[in-house]
């Protein structure tokens, strides 16, 4: 990995006033002389401020703020896959393809992305609206397969529901987060099978007991 493989980005980068205050609070969590420990949250903050990707200027800025050699920051930023060193679309579609999601049909989800957006993993649509990437376990295996769209999880997907999800986004609307097949969180399909009375009190219809 080297800088020549990534876009140059802006010449300078600075935190906004709000983010600067937040950055100071993050740095203050670490004992004196251990400020470099704040590098990961600060990089995340910089990435959120800068359209979800980290230009070199931002990494240098964080390095200067923490008194680190810039290369030490490049090492961290290039090691972790959740830091984007290239621009990504407004909707950053992270499709989990690790075993549980794959067994439950993540191939279908990826294929739906390809059908709808015309891009495969690692690509960005020409209008800069969508980037699709494959990610390792998103940690929501009970609701596999899963897409993490920016910070929001869309779960229990299949081909058609993924297409519907993307359609909603293309229309400029915000789809309802969570399971896309009618499940409530990670409760069984069809409704709760335990704690049924509590479910009824909360207005949820339990699974029919036959």
């Amino acid at each position: 990995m080297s800088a020549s493989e990534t876009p140059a980005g802006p010449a300078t980068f600075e935190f906004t006033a709000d983010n600067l205050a937040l950055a100071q609070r993050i740095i203050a969590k670490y004992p004196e002389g251990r400020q470099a420990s704040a590098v990961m949250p600060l990089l995340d903050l910089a990435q959120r401020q800068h359209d979800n990707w980290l230009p070199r200027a931002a990494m240098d800025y964080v390095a200067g703020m923490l008194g680190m050699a810039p290369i030490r920051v490049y090492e961290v930023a290039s090691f972790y896959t959740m830091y984007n060193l290239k621009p990504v679309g407004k909707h950053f579609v992270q499709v989990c393809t690790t075993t549980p999601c794959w067994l439950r049909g993540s191939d279908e989800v990826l294929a739906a992305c390809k059908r709808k957006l015309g891009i495969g993993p690692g690509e960005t649509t020409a209008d800069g609206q969508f980037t699709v990437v494959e990610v390792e376990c998103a940690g929501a295996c009970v609701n596999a397969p899963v897409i993490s769209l920016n910070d929001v999880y869309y779960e229990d997907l299949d081909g058609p529901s993924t297409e519907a999800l993307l359609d909603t986004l293309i229309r400029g609307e915000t789809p309802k987060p969570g399971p896309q097949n009618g499940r409530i969180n990670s409760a069984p399909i069809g409704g709760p099978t335990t704690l049924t009375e509590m479910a009824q009190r909360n207005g949820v219809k339990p699974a029919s007991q036959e």
Partner: protein
Amino acid sequence: MPKLTIDGIELEVAPGTSVLQACEQLGIEVPRFCYHEKLSVPANCRMCLVEMEKAPKPIASCAMPCGEGMVIKTDTDTVHKARKGVMEFLLINHPLDCPICDQGGECDLQDQAVGYGFDRGRYGEEKRAVKDKNLGPLIKTIMTRCIHCTRCIRFSDEIAGVSVMGATGRGEHMEIGTYVEAAVSSELSGNLVDVCPVGALTSKPYAFTARPWELRKTESVDVLDAVGSNIRIDTRGGEVLRILPRLNEAVNEEWISDKTRYAHDGLKRQRLDRPYIRENGKLRAASWEEALALTAAKLKGAAPEKIAAIAGDLADAESLLALKDLLGGMGVASLESRQDGSAIDAASRAGYIFNSTIAGIEQADQILLIGTNPRWEGALVNARIRKRYLQGGLTVTVLGPRVDLTFPIEHLGNDATLLNAIADGSHPYAETLKAAKKPLLILGSGALARPDGAAVWAAARAVAEACGLVREDWNGFNVLHRAASRVGALDLGFLPAKGGRDLAGILDGARKGEVEVVYLLGADEIDAQNFGRAFVIYQGHHGDRGAHRADVILPGAAYTEKNATYVNTEGRAQHTRQATFPVGEAREDWKIIRALSGALGKPLPYDTLQQLRKRLADANPVFAQVDRVTPAAWGAFGTAGAVAAAPFTLPVENFYMTDAISRASATMAECTEAFVSPAVAERTGTHG
């Protein structure tokens, strides 16, 4: 003191010794790639696996401290199988390009693959390839060969003090490099080539030049600064092909500066290969007889007070003594070896050497740098200060221009009068120095070359005396010289005798016609146009500034071409050894002076190097103590007086070109272009 058993041999080691070091003490060789004695221990190559009793699996011996009652086995089937496995993984992505690799023949991976490699690959997948990086004019990279030992990262981080190397990406995509396109801007960068165990980082100027088994190796000493780094000169067929460091814990450990390592191509350019005589304003080739006869005639024809001699920065002790004996015997008093106009003299040996020794820096807890940039004036001294800094508990204070020394400094300012203030206790820093356990000051040679150099010298002595730098068991007064010849010349008293002229006096006298003959022994750092109408004899090895003005040129030998003695800034006498012959008709310097004494009809009383060395030892006993530092008795030196308020200026403007050899070097010119010119342009705003 833990006691352990290695391969059935019981031994006791110092606490903190690693298993690998304990094995080395027994002479058991443990293969390794990432472990390096001078660097931190990451234990990431896994090649040094050994078996430890009661451990469920092999352990990395470099990172395992010896414990009481440990039983280690280094030669079992498990160990061999484990190491073979590691080697097979290392070789998965390593190209099989040994025949075209510069590391071939001195490659750790190659050597260890003989012992632990498999005779075929079992890996059928695609190999990975890595783009090469541009690390500047000295280091060539072929990154596909890299085995990720991270020695280069640790070296640049820990020893060189420039954190530019790193490992970016992860897993299969991990790459060693600088991430951003950047040359490794360190005066120690050449050592990266040495620490790299494979052919990923190799020497750019030496690329495709020779194989190690073709080279003749000569152990010698570097003279391009006053540190006296120990070097090994590799030659083939009368040509110096490369220079490598040689281990000397007291001086350079196992590093050398880039100038030491790469300036040797200057030995092939601009050489004076035969005598020359100036006729009608033009130099013409001449024979030795002619040149010596002319020189002798001119020396005989002038009155002794109208003759002067100036010795240069690369002059060896033998030729200095011979010239002093020859001219001194004729009654010449104007001998000068301080061609920077320094006020230093031989009043007290403790006043002009690095008393605490370079290794002694590691004991200091407070260092005051006066008008010096040790990074450029003695790169290995700076590396030693950095080593001490990394151990913790050291404060470095700078009086002089603020420069990046690779470690944090406290800046007192750049007002030379502060020296007086510290000496009389009116400056608060005096208390800091007094409170320190082992305080140390380093006086730059540039500070002594000021018009008030003698007062600066005396003021530094006053600081040393007032603040307790000089004690029974500790002498923290140090002068950091730049010229390899300087301490030797001072030890021999190659200085104006009674009634003699110093540098300014010689130049002045030459302009006014009062000095008629000037003998330059490799003196190139003075503006030779100042010699007026004087007859200039130049003895040296490069057609540099001195030779351009010369009326007769006596071609001498460079430091790789003669057996000579140099005294480093610590006062340590060391011998260079002849690795090649002088070019053309050039001769060893002392022999030229001996021949000249014959032509003058006053032959010097030594015909062999042994006789001359004996004479050297008689002249000053330090020359008999080769490679040892004799502590010098403290005495008075300098001229008490007020130090002028002028700020200190640094004498070295370009680290890569400080003498006739490095000025002739193409590699050093490239380094200047890459590292110095951009910085100068930035400072003066002359670019674009």
